[in-house]
Structures are given as structure tokens and as C-alpha cells.
């Protein structure tokens, strides 16, 4: 373990007001991310989520006598990829240890984990803060591979507990951050960013509902300028929102205890989302002695730098690089670029729309029209009714002055509900913008002739031109080019 270093400078805006003054909250996270793989970490059983209870269980997973673990190389590759994505040190030699404790959903009586020599060492994650603004760097202490446990079911019978071993032995990456976060917002943003990185890499699906991503949250508080306080660990938080709530609650609880003259006891706590509070699970004294020792069934895990280089060569573009490229190549604002890269599918969609077109207009349409509409309907890019090609065609029609921005929105609506080729739809439904100056002049003349009183008013007060533009647009069924109408009206009215 490396010594704990305070990497942050005090930000007064992030302090929490107590009854007797300000407090700073310190947060460090241990994220358990399920490795995306076909099979489990040490057995050939399926690692797929769900399935009938105990249908994905091999003899090894059930810890039958004489069974031995064999490392799944794909899980090793995934851990290395993740380490590279976290800009972390990759350890060419690591060791699997046994963490010993008894529990019915832990068939071996020990979890195979990595204690002293993890596969990945120190790294970092750059985190944008959407709410308070700015950017922080969160240090990564380590990443190690370990087995998941099974699931105990206590609600199936009044007198018995049941055990489902489908998850038993599934590969997890435990990603341990340094205590570098100073608010619940920072913690939420860090997990969000970490999840984005994992999804880009394809090493974890990041699905918190299915438990593929779980957080153990370490929280402590201190007076500004003081050393780190005693921490409490909140176990197994399974949503980013709950994590934020748990941190807020726990920080205030600790502040309350300290301000009342008490002290914090190091302990493990649970967050109850229903009640919105954390409660004690076990104290440090009750903590298990896990009796870690190197697993004698497994040789140390060793690979070459060439192996790492080869994996690095095939790594996809990472979110930070993509964001920088979007800003540079497409002239996007950092904010828009940040929104677009949050999910790889979104970024890919945007790039398909933006290719060969105006990036800013493309971003505007993707973020405001498409994402807005998808959000409203609880849909995502993968199942969007409007394809990138279709949206690109709409952007093209605007750029070519074939349709106005307003009509484009109507067109988007038609494509969303009915589908079709935008260009053909415009043609078929006569949505083409009128750029024929003769037709526009005819319409203007008609409006002027019919409203001599308004003409006089407009000549006295030029802003009245808006009324005329509206009338001409109505006359042309909204298809006239608004700029052309405006220009010609000015001439005709002499304003």
C-alpha cells in the first residue's frame, strides 16, 4: 500500500456548514466492476447475468472436492485493458491470494483475490464536474482481479435460506481510488466517468441494476486544514444517485457526532435507500481476519510487456481523447463534446451525422433534438427511430437552404414517427423552401396591397416588419425563405 497523500487544495465552495463551523468531506471509492467475459474467472461456466438459479455452476464453482481453478485468460486481458484505460501501471507479475471466510454463498470457504501484488497499480481518472464546473483528477490506487460470491436468498422460505451460485466465481475488477474526492458530486462524477471508460473499453457493461458495478464508499470528515479523519465504509451501494445520498447523509452524521463532542468509530455501514440513512453493520473489532495467503493452486500470473503492448495497440479511442478530438475537429464547445462522448454509441452516432457536414449544426441537432426526444421517450441511441443517415440528410437539407430550420423540426417529427428518406419526404409533401423571388414578391405585393394602414405604421415604426414577415410566410405556407422575405420587404416598404 502506498501512503495516503492529500492531493487536493482546499475549495471553500465544497465545505459543509456544521453548527460549529465548516467541514470538509473526504471520499474514496472501491468499485467492483464485473468483467465482461463469456466464462468465469477460474472456470468454464457461463458468466452471463440471470438464468435459472444454479444453472451456471461448474464443479469448480461449487467447490467440489479436488477441483482446481484455472485462470481465464480473457479476464486477464480485460483487466490489463482497463489498467491501460486508467493510465495505470501494469504489473507483469501478480499473485492470487486466498481471502478466507465462511459464508454459504462462498463455496470454497475463501475468495480468490489479489492482496499484496495486484495486476494493476497506480493510475488516474480525469473527471469533469457538470454541476459545480471545473475538473478534478482522481488517483487510482490499484486494480485487482477477484471472484464474485454467489447469492443468498433469505425470502424464499420461512425457515430456510437458499443459495444461487450463478454469480459464484464470476470475474470482478476491484478498482480502488485514492481518497481524492471532496463532495458527493465529485464521487458521482467519478463513478460516471469510470463507467464511461469501462464501457468504451468493453471491459464492464457498467450496468448497476444488474450489479455489474457496485461501490463501497469510504467517507470521513475533517475541519479544513486538518489531517484525514476516521473513515466509515458504506458497503455495496448499487446506484450513483444512492451513492450521492449516502455520502451526504454519512458526512452530516459524522459532523453531528463530532460536533456533539463524540468521535467516529471505524466501521462498516449499510445504506438504506428507503430511509435515506446509513446504519452500522459491523465495527472494526468485529472485522474478519481474512488470513490472506498466496493461493497454492495457482502459479503467479506473469506476462510480457509485448503482451501489454499488443493489447494497447488494439485499445479503442478513450473518452478523454475523443473529447479533445471533437473540440478540435468539429469546433465543439467542451460542454457539447463532453455530452457527446459520455456514451460511445452517442459519440459514434454524432460522428456519423457530422461526417462531411458542419459539426456544430450536427452537434446541435444530435444533442438538442435527438437526445432531447430520446430522453423524453426513455429511449437510447441504439434504438433511435431516426438513424444517423436520416438525421444527416435533414442537416444537409438545412445547409442547402432546401428547408428552413423550423420546417426541419417538422421534418424530424415526420421521420421520427413515420420514417423514410428525408429528401423524398420534403419533395413529396412540398416542404421545399420557396426561394423563387418572383413568387415571394407576388406574395409581398398582395399583403402590402391588402393592408395599406399597416404599411404606414411600419414606415413609422420599422419593427412592425415582423408582422409583414409573418403574413408573407402564412401566404406561402411557411415555405418562403425568411431571410429573402425580410430583405425584399425592407425594399418594398422603404425601411
Amino acid at each position, binding site marked *: 500500500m502506498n501512503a495516503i497523500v492529500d492531493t487536493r487544495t482546499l475549495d471553500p465552495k465544497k465545505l459543509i456548514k456544521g453548527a460549529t463551523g465548516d467541514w470538509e468531506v473526504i471520499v474514496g471509492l472501491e468499485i467492483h466492476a464485473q468483467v465482461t467475459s463469456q466464462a468465469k474467472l477460474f472456470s468454464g461456466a457461463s458468466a452471463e447475468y440471470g438464468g435459472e438459479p444454479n444453472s451456471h455452476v461448474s*464443479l469448480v464453482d*461449487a*467447490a*467440489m*472436492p*479436488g*477441483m*482446481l*481453478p*484455472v*485462470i481465464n485468460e480473457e479476464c486477464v486481458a480485460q483487466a490489463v485493458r482497463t489498467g491501460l484505460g486508467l493510465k495505470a501501471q501494469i504489473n507483469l507479475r501478480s499473485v492470487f491470494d*486466498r481471502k*478466507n471466510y*465462511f459464508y*454459504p454463498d462462498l*463455496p*470454497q*470457504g*475463501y475468495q480468490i483475490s489479489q492482496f499484496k501484488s495486484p495486476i494493476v497499480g497506480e493510475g488516474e481518472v480525469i473527471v469533469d464536474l457538470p454541476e459545480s464546473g471545473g475538473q478534478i483528477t482522481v488517483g487510482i490506487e490499484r486494480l485487482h482481479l477477484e471472484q464474485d460470491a454467489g447469492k443468498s436468498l433469505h425470502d424464499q422460505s420461512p425457515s430456510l*435460506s437458499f*443459495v444461487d451460485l450463478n454469480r459464484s466465481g464470476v470475474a470482478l475488477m476491484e478498482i480502488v481510488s485514492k481518497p481524492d474526492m471532496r463532495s458527493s458530486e465529485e464521487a458521482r462524477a467519478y463513478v460516471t466517468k469510470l463507467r464511461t471508460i469501462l464501457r468504451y473499453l468493453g471491459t464492464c457493461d457498467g450496468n448497476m441494476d444488474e450489479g455489474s458495478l457496485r461501490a463501497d464508499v469510504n467517507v470521513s470528515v475533517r475541519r479544513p486544514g486538518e489531517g484525514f479523519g476516521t473513515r466509515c465504509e458504506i458497503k455495496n451501494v448499487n446506484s450513483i444517485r444512492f451513492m450521492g445520498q449516502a455520502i451526504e447523509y454519512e458526512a452530516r452524521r459524522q459532523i453531528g457526532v463530532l460536533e456533539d463532542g463524540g468521535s467516529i468509530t471505524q466501521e462498516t455501514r449499510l445504506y438504506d435507500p428507503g430511509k435515506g440513512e446509513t446504519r452500522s453493520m459491523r465495527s472494526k473489532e468485529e472485522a474478519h*481476519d481474512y*488470513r*490472506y*495467503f498466496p493461493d*497454492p*493452486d*495457482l*502459479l503467479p500470473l506473469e506476462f510480457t510487456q509485448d503482451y501489454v503492448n499488443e493489447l494497447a495497440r488494439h485499445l479503442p479511442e478513450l473518452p478523454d481523447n475523443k473529447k479533445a478530438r471533437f473540440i478540435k475537429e468539429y469546433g465543439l464547445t467542451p460542454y457539447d463534446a463532453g455530452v457527446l462522448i459520455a456514451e460511445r454509441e452517442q459519440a459514434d452516432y454524432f460522428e456519423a451525422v457530422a461526417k462531411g457536414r458542419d459539426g456544430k449544426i450536427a452537434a446541435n441537432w444530435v444533442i438538442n433534438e435527438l437526445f432531447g426526444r430520446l430522453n423524453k421517450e426513455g429511449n437510447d441511441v441504439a434504438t433511435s427511430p431516426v438513424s444517423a443517415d436520416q438525421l444527416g440528410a435533414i442537416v444537409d437539407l438545412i445547409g442547402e437552404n432546401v428547408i428552413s430550420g423550423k420546417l426541419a423540426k417538422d421534418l424530424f417529427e415526420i421521420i421520427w414517427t413515420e420514417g423514410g428518406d428525408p429528401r423524398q419526404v420534403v419533395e413529396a409533401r412540398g416542404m421545399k423552401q420557396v426561394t423563387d423571388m418572383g413568387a415571394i414578391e407576388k406574395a409581398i405585393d398582395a399583403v402590402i396591397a391588402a393592408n395599406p394602414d399597416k404599411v404606414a405604421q411600419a414606415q413609422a415604426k420599422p419593427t412592425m416588419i415582423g408582422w409583414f414577415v409573418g403574413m408573407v410566410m402564412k401566404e406561402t405556407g411557411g415555405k418562403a425563405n425568411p431571410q429573402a422575405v425580410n430583405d425584399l420587404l425592407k425594399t418594398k416598404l422603404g425601411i
Partner: protein
Amino acid sequence: MTDLTHMTLADARDALKARTISSVELTKAHLAAMEVARPLGAYVLETPDQALAMAKASDEKIAKGDAGALEGIPLGIKDLYATKGVRTTACSNILANFVPKYESTVSSQLWRDGAVMLGKLSNDEFAMGSSNESSAFGPAVSPWTPPNWTADKAKSALAGDKKGLLVPGGSSGGSASAVAAGLCLGATATDTGGSIRQPAAFTGTAGIKPTYGRCSRWGIVAFASSLDQAGPIARTVRDTAIMLRSMAGHDPKDTTSVDRAVPDYEAAIGRSVKGMKIGIPKEYRVEGMSAEIDALWTKGADMLRAAGAEIVEISLPHTKYALPAYYIVAPAEASSNLARYDGVRYGVRVPGKDITDMYEKTRAAGFGPEVRRRIMIGTYVLSAGYYDAYYVRAQQIRTLIKQDFEKAYAAGVDAVLTPATPSPAFGIGEKSGADPVEMYLNDVFTVTVNMAGLPGLAVPAGLSAEGLPLGLQLIGRPFDEETLFSLGEVIEQAAGRTTLPTRWWA
């Protein structure tokens, strides 16, 4: 007619091939002998139907000229090996009715090569012991009678509390007893600290613990994973060589097994040992060692010298730390390996008022005293605050022991000769008293070999003044079992084949 149960495995193989005997005949003779010898307690489960079916199939294969290397040879299997559809208990109550749905890699290789399974052999519970007295099925008895005992006295003791009869050694006591009593032509065994070599020495049989990684551990109930290794016990060095060829080999299901070609070990039998350098480690001349064992050791060295080998004194300076270090490493691994026997998924369960109570009652009822003792020792030495003082230091000693041997081999030594045990077989009840260390001292010459991961062969080298078998141990370079077989054959030939004990139990 020759007694079919007193043949060597090699002779039986040749007779089967020549079709002067059939596997069914051979198997029936063994099944009959087993029935008579039940009071010896060598077998904890007999599988006659399976044996006869396998024998019949073997005879058909032999007739077709399609025989495997062990075609038709009846063998006994240590109860630590998982056998598909056949109860496998490790001689522990906690697995009293456990029937695996899988076959261990090593036993499946024996069946692949045509061997016939007679049944499951007794051992110390979870292979923890040196006398086979900790088996949940009760002690297995050596077919050798105690000095000056008449057959009648032995027979009546066998019908009673067995006190005073000789232990066959352990943990592979059932294997050694069965081979010596003519209840199989060879047996599988396992060795964590001497569990093949000490019983072989006690019963006048041959046994080899191969290099760590030579045989797959998959499907063998684990005691101490970094020390456990499968191997054979048989009547002659040649017979063990024949068996090991089938048992050895790489297994992708065991990461610690080594991917290395398996030589024709039998071809090493009779190979000249001329010019080989044999090390005699002075540190093995332990305090309290009997003059008889000392003399045997010298005699063994003389036999090898007579065959053209050069005898040199060597030093293995860390030898004295091996036993205490072993009794830290092995229990530490065992305490973790045996955590799976918790009453949740298989094996015995004793109900309790909650999960902890169920665990405690199950494990208290399921494990015998020696197993409980080692789980406690292992748990203790791995505990926070003691880990560095015990486990880490024991591992450091292990490295030093390994280096001792490496230095000797680097200096040109081809093999090391030592006694196999500090004494001949002792009586049942003699060392199972209050002080477990007395029993542990049996392993003093054998544990170094497991700690260093080297191959070790126990070869019968003669009888004590009182007429009990004595064995010598040959320790080799990693994966150089062949040299051990060549040297072992020299000793065995020079010492003269030990005659099997008479069937006083019948």
C-alpha cells in the same frame, strides 16, 4: 498354480499379454483375497461388479490385440482420489456418503490404459497422519506381524482392538497394506510429507513420490496443495515405474502440472548406474536414529558403490528446519482447503439453530481430532499478527531447503540416498497418544523432498533384526525419476526381494 495375487505387476502384465492368465481370473483371485483380508481394513470400499466388468472388457481387448499399458491389471485406489459414481470419502466422516460425478485425472489415465479397479483404499483422514490410525473407518493393519507374535496371537488381536498389531504407515496405509498383503498388484497413493514413502518402507513395498507437477492433482481431495503429489505403491521398483508412466502427464485442469513429455520409466530399470554420484547428507544422521537404520544406510551406499556409483558425503544444512516448517505450511494450506467442507452443498450436515451453529456442529462431528488439530494450527499461523512470524518464515525456510538440494545437484550429485524412516513400523496405539509430535517425527526424512518439490523413491532394502521391513529413500533432480528407478532397482536386486508375509489373517 502360482498364486495370482503374489505376482508382480510386470509378471502379471506379461502373463496377460501371453494369455496364460486372464484378467477375469486375476481379478477374481484378488476379489477373493480381499474378502478374506477384510479384517485388515485395507479397503474401505470394494467394487467387485465394476472390477469384473472392467476385467472382462480388458480380456476382450487383449484378445483383439488392442491392449493398453496396464490392460487387465487389478489396482486399488486411495480413497483420496475421486472416482465417478463410486463413494469417495478421504476416510472422513464429513464426506461419509459423498459420491463424485467426476473421475480424477490420474485414475482416469489408469482406466484409459486398461487397469481394473478393485475398490477404494483406506488412508489417514484427509491424508493427515503417518499410521493410518486417523481413518474414519478405523485403522488399516499391516500384513506384517509384530516381532515374536504367532499367527494366532495376531489373528485374535485383529478380531479385537488391533492394539499391538503393526501400522502400515500413513497416510497411504491402505495402499501399502493392500500391496503387501496381495490384495492388488499396485495401488495409487498420495504424498504430502511422506505418505507414499513411509508406508512403503513400513510394508516392504516400493513407492515413488514424483516431482511436484508430474501428476495432475485434479480430482484428488486436497490436503496441502503446494506439497500434494500423486504416485504409486507397488511390489517392486519396476512395478512403480510401469504405473507412474500411466499416472503422469500434463493436465490443463491443474495449473501446477507441468507440460513435459512422460518418459518410458520402465526403460530406466536395469540401466547402468556406473559413474553416478550419490550424495549422503550428513544432516540426516539424526539424534536417536537406531544403529540398525544407520547400518542399513551404509549397506545401501555399499550396494550402489558395488554397482559402480561414487558415494560422496554432502551437506544439506537446513534439513533440521524442514519438519517444523512443514508443520506450518501444510496445516496452513489445509485449514483453507478444508473450509469447503461446511455442510452446505454436499457431505454431512448437522443441523443447528443458525448458520454458524450448523457450521460448528457439522465440522465438529465431521472431522476427527487430528484434522481438527491441523485446521487449528493452520488457522493460527495464518492469523493477522502471526502470519509473518510463522507462514512467511516457513516459506523462507522452504526456499533454503530447495537451494540446499540445488547446490548439491549443481556440484554434480545425481541423487541423494537417505533412510526412508527413522525406525521400522510401530504398533497400533503406540504413537497415537497425547503427543502428536511423536507421530510427526516419522516424516523427518521425507518432508524435505515435498518442501523442495523433488522426486523421492522408497525402496525396500532388507529386514530388521526382528524381521520387519526397512526402506531407503532416493531423492532425485526435478523430473529425473528415471535415475531413481535405475538406482532403486540396483538396491532392490542387491537386497533381495522381500518375501510377502504369510496370510495369517485367513
